[in-house]
């Protein structure tokens, strides 16, 4: 990447750095919330689950702070070109990260509803899936911090793995439910968890697409991405 010069008005750089710091912190918290929610789910740890639910408030507060700072910076500094693109991307990225936080909270809330799930074999698979999703979120936010368009493209390509995981878990759980009707409630909850993880992967892709726009000024071309949304819907349809 080209060397980025400082702004003549130093306070502008300070605003931008503060904005980046806030987004980093918010992303870190969302990633952590996901990992903690999954740990709580696998261990039935209600205290940890409650901590995730509580921690989501801080993520929401950070979103509000970034929005306010972005609006203020646009009004006072009239950013142009890559600065302007960064402001727009910041607004969109925090709303996506906030969604990721909500999904983590949603997973955490299910922990209390799933006392009998210990024996469902899909949980370890969900743990593997969540590890990949957390890595995608992490890399998407790293690509933002480093202004790395290549990394952003790789994130969107890797989202395909998450979709594959989802399709596979979907089939497994549907089969499991047919064979073990008394586990239907728990299995349904796990289906939602899988869906939440799949959505988080999509959101990591959204972040990556915005990073690509900030860095290059162009929208990411379809061919540069991995296959996206419709795969999972097709799988659901196949299962009837």
């Amino acid at each position, binding site marked *: 990447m*080209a060397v980025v010069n*400082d*702004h*003549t008005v130093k306070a*502008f750089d300070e605003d931008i750095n503060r904005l980046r710091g806030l987004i980093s912190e918010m992303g870190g918290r969302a990633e952590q919330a996901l990992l903690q929610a999954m740990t709580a789910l696998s261990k039935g740890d209600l205290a940890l689950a409650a901590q995730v639910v509580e921690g989501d408030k801080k993520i929401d507060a950070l979103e509000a702070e970034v929005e306010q700072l972005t609006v203020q910076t646009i009004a006072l*500094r009239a*950013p*142009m070109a890559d600065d*302007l*693109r960064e402001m727009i991307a910041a607004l969109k990225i925090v709303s996506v990260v906030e969604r990721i936080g909500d999904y983590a909270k949603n997973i955490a809330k299910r922990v209390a509803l799933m006392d009998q799930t210990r024996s469902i074999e899909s949980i370890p698979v969900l743990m593997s899936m969540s590890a990949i999703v957390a890595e995608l979120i992490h890399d998407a936010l790293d690509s933002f911090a480093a202004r790395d368009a290549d990394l952003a493209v790789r994130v969107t390509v890797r989202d395909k793995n998450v979709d594959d995981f989802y399709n596979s878990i979907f089939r497994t759980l549907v089969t499991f439910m047919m064979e073990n009707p008394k586990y239907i409630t728990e299995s349904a909850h796990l289906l939602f968890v899988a869906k939440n993880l799949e959505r988080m992967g999509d959101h990591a892709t959204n972040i990556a697409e915005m990073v690509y726009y900030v860095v290059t000024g162009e929208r990411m071309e379809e061919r540069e991405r991995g296959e996206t949304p419709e795969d999972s819907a097709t799988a659901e349809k196949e299962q009837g």
Partner: protein
Amino acid sequence: MTNDDLIIADPKMRAEGVNVFYGDKQAIKDVSIDVGTDLVTAFIGPSGCGKSTFLRSLNRMNDTVASARVTGRIELDGEDIYAPSMDVVQLRARVGMVFQKPNPFPKSIYDNVAYGSRIHGLAANKADLDVIVERALTRAGLWDEVKDRLGESGTALSGGQQQRLCIARAIAVDPEVILMDEPCSALDPIATAKIEELIHELRGKYAIVIVTHNMQQAARVSQRTAFFHLGTLVEYGKTTDIFTNPKQERTKDYITGRYG
């Protein structure tokens, strides 16, 4: 975006390989650019980058500077404006100019606007001239403010009104191109907004080229933007592209306030 989008099919003015020298010093280096009839073109760049010099070469205002020398070719409707056969007075009627500081003549508002038409013999009689003056002042958005005091001195108007009077004076002779050199830099934000609205109104009637230090203004009023730096044309493009996604590092550094 492809370069095809930028091609102007029938340019009003065309500059090719233009160099401008002040004595030994080269102020403009090999600049080529087309000015479209229906477009507002903004020239931006740091002080001393040559944008005003280049603007002034478009109606030979640099002729008045003894040491100035222009090479290359500048055309108006395909005609070389530096050809010996070109009538400079006629050229400046066709390519009018508005300056940074409003400079009304120390004459009445009416005479300021009528002046050009009188010397170019555009009006057959007083009634004709009245029509020309009213139309120019109306187009310049000044008529309602001055119609009852056309006999008062132009210099008695406010700065913003004076600048619109100068624009009225420029358009009274029915030019084809209007060059504006920082037309709002001496005006308050309201007067500036009126000039910008006026530029918007005048677009399509005249080809307009505006030099401005105010990048928000360039972004607001123009469809094409040219960025000058150290006498060269660094980047020319659609205004929206220049301000959201400039291709050149120097352009980006300048418009984002990193130029140092």
